[in-house]
Structure formats: structure tokens, C-alpha cells
């Protein structure tokens, strides 16, 4: 029916354009919210959700109470929902769509399905129509029909769907989120909205989690806190740790930093808080030293890095790593402290010094992210500059050392990289710069260009 026809019939009708993306977001939000019942939630098509509640229903006082609770809460939020519980995904699908709030006991699938139309088997419209054209109008009609002719005439689908619904064939429902190795949650009778209370709760949950982690001999590397708001919004915050951790007060401090840095709207409060260990690693308990405080120092540093990471991002604190390259910008990279293998600080730096740039090749202490173009004048085409203009200021070169010729790495892809001649120059005031001339005067159409690449002490 077109809009004009609809308006003719109901002049007061309001036209809203379909927005599948927004519908999808809403469904995903609902799926998030359904995490409170089970960690295994999958999205089904455009309007359905599968919840795998195996082993979860007793937490809510049985399947019936769980179903009532789910429907009541969704209805409070303004959704009209239908739900069904069954031992197979197919039957549950049919129960939700064709009967409403039905709980099908194991073994009763065939009896339940027999009275339903063929659409209850999740069949395509064309297959449905084909079956109906030969008089098979209900599931009961094909339940008893011989399978081989059915499969030959209508394809494998009706048989497969039937088997899935009856539980003869396994059907995998893929959950949206990975299931955490360990999670601890607390249902609150009265919603909380103060961040202090949440942190206190994190501490209590972490105390519970510590016991399980100790039993496994593990420590958490990535922790996630899920906050379920009363009105259905779920906020998740995650903190990573640079070494396995299970101390509740440290976990609390990490979440303190994270929660103070992230904007979380508590709204009317949170009624369910869940702390899950997303990643864990082996936790080696170490014997403390009687006199030295070295281990304490290292742990202090790791905790500090984690706290900074929780507030500003895991990549904030970084450690430089030397790389085997003669190209200045490739000679050093940085890795996040959390990802870096624990470097023994006590180890002398001699071994690093050996495979370093050769002796007496001086390198700047600060290097620009990208070389800054500059206008330089040199007396000879291949000579050092005698003045250069950098950031709108003219510098006169008092002394220059060089050139140090650095050729591009030929074993990399032949890019437009050109040979660079580096000069170490000092201006008349005593500032020391690292200038380079990119390109050679070899008759190529592109003229050499000057850059300031770094600053010396």
C-alpha cells in the first residue's frame, strides 16, 4: 500500500521512514541488555534474539520466572515482546512467534510443532508456497511424510529445518560476544549511581574473583566491567594490566582511574554490575626479597603504567626500541610499556651499545616526526649550507660537519626515497641542528631539497 492510499484511509497517520541501521542498533542494545540473563546472546535476523540459558535459569528461580522477569522488564521499557523457551533453537523460535510465552519441555517438540503452520519451521517463502501448493499446510503434515521424496522434490531445507527443530541435528547459535573465562556479578535490589559505590562494588567483586583466579593459578590481564542501567543501557569499561594481577585493591584503583576518565551516565542507576576477566595469564607468585625492594619497585612501576593506561590509553607510556636500520627515522620505534617484555633494569646497557650505530657517528637527541622543509643556501651544490630559513627565521651557519650520506634501503620497495646528505650545523648563537639535503645534483628533474630533521644538544 502506498503512502497516498494509507493517508486516504487514515488521514492522521504519521509517516516515518524506515531506518534499518537504527533498528539494528536498538536490537544490539537489547542484546547487550540481555547479557544480564546469559553471556550467550545471539542476534536472529532483524527482530529476534536467541538466548542460550542452559545453566542460567536457576539463578532466576526457574525458567518460568526467568521468562516472566524478561517479559516484564522489557514491557516496562516499552517493548512488545514475545518469547518462548525450548530445548532447540528451532522450536524456541516457533514457540516465540506462534504461541507466545510458551515453555516446551524436552521431548514435546513434535507435539507442539505439529499444530503450527509451515512458516514455524523457518522456511523460505518459496519453499513454503511449494509445499502448500501440494496440500502440506502444517508442520504435522510433513512430520509423518516420507523424507526421501520430500527432500527430492523440495530440496534439503524442509528436512533440515525439521531435524533442527526436533533436535536430531545440532544447530550452533553463535553468540555476539566472547564468553569471559571468569565473571563475577552482583544483582542489586536498589540501583546505585554514585561512582564511589561502583568502585566499592568492584572491590567486592574482585575479592570474589581472586579466589577463582588463585585456584586456577592465573592473574587477570584484561578486565571488563559491565554496568547494566535500569533503563536497559549497558556500559562496558575495560582496563588492561601489564602483568597478571589479582589483588582486589589494585583492580579497584585501576577502575578508579578508568571511571574518572570515562563519561558514564548513571541515569537512574545501575541494577546489575558484572566484572569479567577477559584475558588471563599465568600468575607466578614470587618470593619477596628480605632486604631489597626491587620487586616492589617493578610492581609499582607496572601499576603506575596500568593506571596511566586506564586513564589515558594503553599506548600512553612507551618504551623506545632500537631497530637495525641506518635510516634515522627507522632506527628507533616505540612499543607500549604494557606490551614490552619485562626488561631487566639491572642489566647493563653494554650489549645494546655493541650493535649500535658505529662509534663517532653523532645522532640528534630529538628527531622531528617528519623532516621540516627549509630553505637553505649553500656555496657549492654539494657543499654544506651557510644559512637556512627554518620556521620563518634565518639562521647563519657558523660551523658545519658533514656530509654523512645516508642512502635509502634498497631492499625495501623502491619508493621515491632519495639519498640524503646530513650535515651537523651550529648557528652563530650556538644552536645545533641536523640538516639534510634530500636528493643529488645528478641531472634528475627533481631538485634536491633541504630539511631540518633533528636537534642536537
Amino acid at each position, binding site marked *: 500500500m502506498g503512502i497516498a492510499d494509507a493517508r486516504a484511509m487514515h488521514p492522521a497517520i504519521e509517516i516515518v521512514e524506515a531506518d534499518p541501521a537504527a533498528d539494528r542498533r536498538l536490537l544490539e542494545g537489547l542484546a547487550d541488555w540481555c547479557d544480564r540473563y546469559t553471556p550467550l546472546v545471539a542476534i536472529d535476523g532483524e527482530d529476534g534474539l536467541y538466548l542460550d540459558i542452559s545453566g542460567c535459569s536457576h539463578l532466576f528461580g526457574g525458567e518460568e520466572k526467568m521468562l516472566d522477569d524478561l517479559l516484564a522488564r522489557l514491557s516496562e521499557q516499552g517493548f512488545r515482546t514475545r518469547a518462548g523457551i525450548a530445548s532447540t533453537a528451532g522450536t524456541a523460535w516457533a514457540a516465540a512467534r506462534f504461541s507466545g510465552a510458551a515453555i516446551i519441555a524436552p521431548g514435546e517438540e513434535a507435539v507442539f510443532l505439529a499444530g503450527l503452520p509451515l512458516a514455524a519451521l523457518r522456511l523460505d517463502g518459496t519453499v513454503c508456497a511449494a509445499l502448500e501448493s501440494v496440500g502440506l499446510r502444517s508442520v504435522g503434515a510433513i512430520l509423518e511424510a516420507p523424507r526421501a521424496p520430500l527432500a527430492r522434490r523440495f530440496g534439503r531445507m524442509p528436512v533440515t529445518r525439521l531435524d533442527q527443530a526436533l533436535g536430531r541435528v545440532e544447530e550452533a547459535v553463535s553468540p555476539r560476544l566472547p564468553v569471559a573465562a571468569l565473571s563475577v556479578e552482583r544483582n542489586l535490589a536498589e540501583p546505585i549511581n554514585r561512582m564511589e559505590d561502583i568502585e566499592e562494588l568492584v572491590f567486592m567483586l574482585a575479592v570474589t574473583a581472586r579466589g577463582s583466579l588463585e585456584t586456577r593459578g592465573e592473574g587477570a590481564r584484561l578486565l571488563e566491567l559491565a554496568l547494566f542501567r535500569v533503563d536497559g543501557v549497558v556500559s562496558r569499561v575495560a582496563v588492561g594490566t601489564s602483568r597478571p594481577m589479582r589483588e582486589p585493591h589494585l583492580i579497584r584503583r585501576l577502575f578508579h582511574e578508568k571511571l574518572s576518565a570515562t563519561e558514564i551516565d548513571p541515569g537512574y542507576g545501575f541494577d546489575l554490575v558484572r566484572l569479567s576477566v577477559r584475558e588471563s595469564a599465568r600468575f607466578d607468585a614470587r618470593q619477596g626479597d628480605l632486604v631489597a625492594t626491587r620487586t616492589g619497585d617493578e610492581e609499582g612501576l607496572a601499576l603506575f603504567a596500568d593506571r596511566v593506561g586506564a586513564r589515558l590509553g594503553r599506548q600512553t607510556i612507551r618504551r623506545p626500541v*632500537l631497530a637495525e636500520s641506518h635510516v634515522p627515522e627507522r632506527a628507533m620505534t616505540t612499543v607500549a610499556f604494557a606490551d614490552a617484555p619485562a626488561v631487566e633494569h639491572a642489566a647493563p646497557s653494554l650489549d645494546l651499545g655493541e650493535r649500535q650505530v658505529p662509534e663517532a657517528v653523532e645522532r640528534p637527541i630529538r628527531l622531528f616526526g617528519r623532516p621540516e622543509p627549509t630553505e637553505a643556501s649553500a656555496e657549492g651544490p654539494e657543499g654544506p649550507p651557510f644559512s637556512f630559513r627554518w620556521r620563518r627565521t634565518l639562521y647563519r651557519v657558523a660551523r658545519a660537519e658533514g656530509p654523512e650520506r645516508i642512502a635509502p634501503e634498497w631492499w625495501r620497495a623502491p619508493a621515491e626515497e632519495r639519498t640524503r646528505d646530513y650535515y651537523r650545523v651550529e648557528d652563530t648563537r650556538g644552536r645545533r641542528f641536523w640538516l639534510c639535503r634530500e636528493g643529488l645534483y645528478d641531472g634528475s628533474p627533481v631538485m634536491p631539497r633541504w630539511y631540518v630533521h633533528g636537534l642536537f644538544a
Partner: protein
Amino acid sequence: MATSAAARGTLFALRRKIAKIEGTPADTLSPDEVGMASDGIVLREGGSPLRHPALTESLIATGDADFDAALGGGVPRAALTEIHGAEMRDAGVVTGFALGLCAAAMKAVPQSLPLLWIAPAENNREAGFPYAPGLLELFGISPGSLLTCETPKLADALWVAEEAARLSALGAVLLELRGNPQRVDLTATRRLHFRARDAGRPVFLLRQSARAEPTAAPLRLSISPAPAGMRRTVAGPLSGSIGPPAFMVEIGKSRTARSGSFELEWNSHERSFRKRGPEIPGSVVPVPVHRRHLAPASRPLLAGDTSFAAGAADRQPAREERTADRRPRRAG
């Protein structure tokens, strides 16, 4: 000695008053227990005078005797130290001096604890990123003992610095800022200073293109560039070469209240500063006359370096032999 006793009474009353203001217990040390430097300077740390053993431990000797004396023994270890540069273009020199102090501070501690270098992102974009190969070679700060922290905002950098200043797991903290932001005031510097004092670790506040303003740091140094000396070779200073980095250091504020400016240069072998003296022409060791060829100096071969071009490192090139780039420039 009634007058002397009265004077001492007044002195102690004043001290108690000062201690009360500073919020520390009044010291009851006799003057000979009090840390007195040779020239009668009383060193105080958190209101209470230092005892003799602490006197040496709690100061970072820079290496230059005159400069150390002017500072009252050295740069305080457990304190905030401000290092100022007048202009952003001096960033290399100012950073170099600050890193020199960091290296000197880290050298004195037996176990090598890492240095944390905190800077807002804009600073690194403006003045360049810390370059580990250069730091290793000049200051001996290995990549393993350097941590960098780049924060999106100034407030975050301050927060990280405050948290880091109380850690004893760090050898030194270097906070680099630009200009005179409102947020970095007396209170902020006091917070940093007190944390550094409690942790016993130095915190260096590196301020690029900043002007002096009230600070809680006991020491403020202003750094400006100075022409470097020449490279020292066996055959004497190598003319036209750029030797170890040099700095013009001015004491803006110190406990001894002795101002002065010093021209220092960094000695990368000793990891300490030394006075930048005049170049003494001539060789360090007598050059053998019967042998014309000396071992080449340990430096890269320089194109247009006449001493190499001529193949004779043992004689100074005549004026006309010098290449054009060495000639004094004409003005304009």
C-alpha cells in the same frame, strides 16, 4: 656570653617560627650537627637542616666545581628543579642540559632505574620526539631505561607527573612543558616538589620558551645556547669541528641565592658537566716528527675537510688552503 646566648635564643625562636610556617617539627640540632657547607651555608630539606652524610647523598654533583659551589653543593636530588629555555628554537640545547642532569642523577644511583619523560603531544611535535640512539650515545641513557609518556593535554601531563613523582621506582622524572600555562602555578609546582621530596627522586620541570614566574622549586636554571668547543684529537683541537655540546647556564633561583652564569659543556664519557674552557692550541701528546702519518681521528671523514684532503692531520691548514665554507662570512 649573654649577648651570644640571647642571639642564639632569637635564632632558635626564628627557626621554630619558620618550622611552624613550613609545617615541620622544629629542629633541635646544634649548629655543628647541622649540615654546613664550607662557606657557612645551611642546607635545608623540608625545613630541617641536613646532617653531614645526607649533605652529599642528597645532592647531584654536576661535575663542575664552581657551578656546584654556587648551587651549594649540587642540584638537590629530592626536589623539583626548573630548567628554563627562553625560546622554542633553543629546545635542543635546553633538553640537552636537562638530560645531562638526568644522566648525572641516574649515574649516582647504583641500580639503573628508568627515566620517565613526560610531554604533551604538542611539545613533541614542536620540538621533536626523543631520539633514543642520540640519547644512548651522548647521555648513556639506554632505551631500556627510558620511558616516554605523550599525553593529549597539558592537564594529563601534570597528572602523570604528579603520580610519577611519588614513585621510587623511577630514577628521574622529566616533565616538559611549553610556555607559561595558567595551570602550572605555585600550587602545581609545590605539589610536584613535595612529592619529589617524599620519594627522594629528582623531578625536572623543563619549560620551553617560558619566562620566570614564582615557583616552589628550590632551584631554577635558565639555559641558553653556547657555541660548542672543538673536537679534541691527538693532534689538538680540530678547527671547524663541532665538539661536545655547550650550554650557557644562569642560576635564576637557588637556596644559596648566589646568582651567576656558567658556560658548561657535557662530557659524555664521564657523564658529567665541565667548564667550557678556552681552546688550547697544540696537541695533547707530542707529535712524533719522524712519522708523518698519524692515526686518523675517531670521527667521520668530513668532505671538504682540508686536513683529510691533504692527508696530513698533524699540521694546521694554511688560511688559503681552507675551503670556502670555513671562511668568515661577510655580513648580509
